[in-house]
């Protein structure tokens, strides 16, 4: 019952997302599509880990599914992190740089 309420609450959350200006059917349905698309595509891409280890892929897929579904609506949280303010963009750029460099230096030969 809790999950059902949560899904119902999603529509209300989307209203806030488009807050200045009217909210149309097309926008809300688009956001719900985006929500489902995000969950499904992340889970499917987690299955790609089976080329490393089948057990790991199964575990990650299960954990990711539970985590993503219990955290809906994802899109409002997601959109806040993807806004185009310089601070956030530089932060993510430098974070990715640090991750790539660390990963390549110590783990480049593992694959």
């Amino acid at each position, binding site marked *: 019952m809790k999950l059902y309420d949560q899904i119902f609450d999603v529509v209300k959350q989307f209203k806030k997302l488009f807050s200045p200006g009217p909210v149309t059917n097309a926008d809300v349905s688009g956001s719900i599509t985006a929500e489902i698309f995000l969950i499904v595509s992340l889970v499917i891409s987690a299955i790609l880990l089976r080329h490393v280890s089948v057990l790991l892929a199964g575990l990650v897929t299960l954990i990711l599914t539970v985590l993503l579904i219990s955290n809906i609506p994802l899109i409002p949280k997601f959109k806040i992190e993807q*806004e*185009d*303010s*310089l*601070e956030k963009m530089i932060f993510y750029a*430098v974070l990715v740089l640090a991750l790539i460099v660390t990963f390549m230096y110590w783990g480049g030969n593992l694959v």
Partner: protein
Amino acid sequence: MAQVQLAILLTSAALVIIGLYSAIFIDNIIKKIIGISFIEEGANLFIVAIGYKAGGVVPILMPGMDTSWFAANAAYPLPFGLVLTSIVIGASTLAVMLALVMVLYRRYGTLSTKVMLADTSKQEEYNE
């Protein structure tokens, strides 16, 4: 590796890290631009250090030099040529950034990145 080259490599690494630090943590836009230009300088210093040869000579063939001695002792000049281009590119990029900052200062009246370069929807609220 010569001691000189090691010191230079550490310096260039320090410059790159200072630049990346200032890109994230400094709020004032002019200081942020100064900081970011240090990344470019660090990269330039690194590339010049590649061409360096300990105990070598400047790669200019003077009259009277023996060619084979010169070839064995001169520094490697290709990186130097590359860095020349890179320095000029860095300076022009910096000039364009400062010009944009000067235009934007007239609109916002502050140099804070949080105000000047916030999310586009928030800027619309700020200007209303």
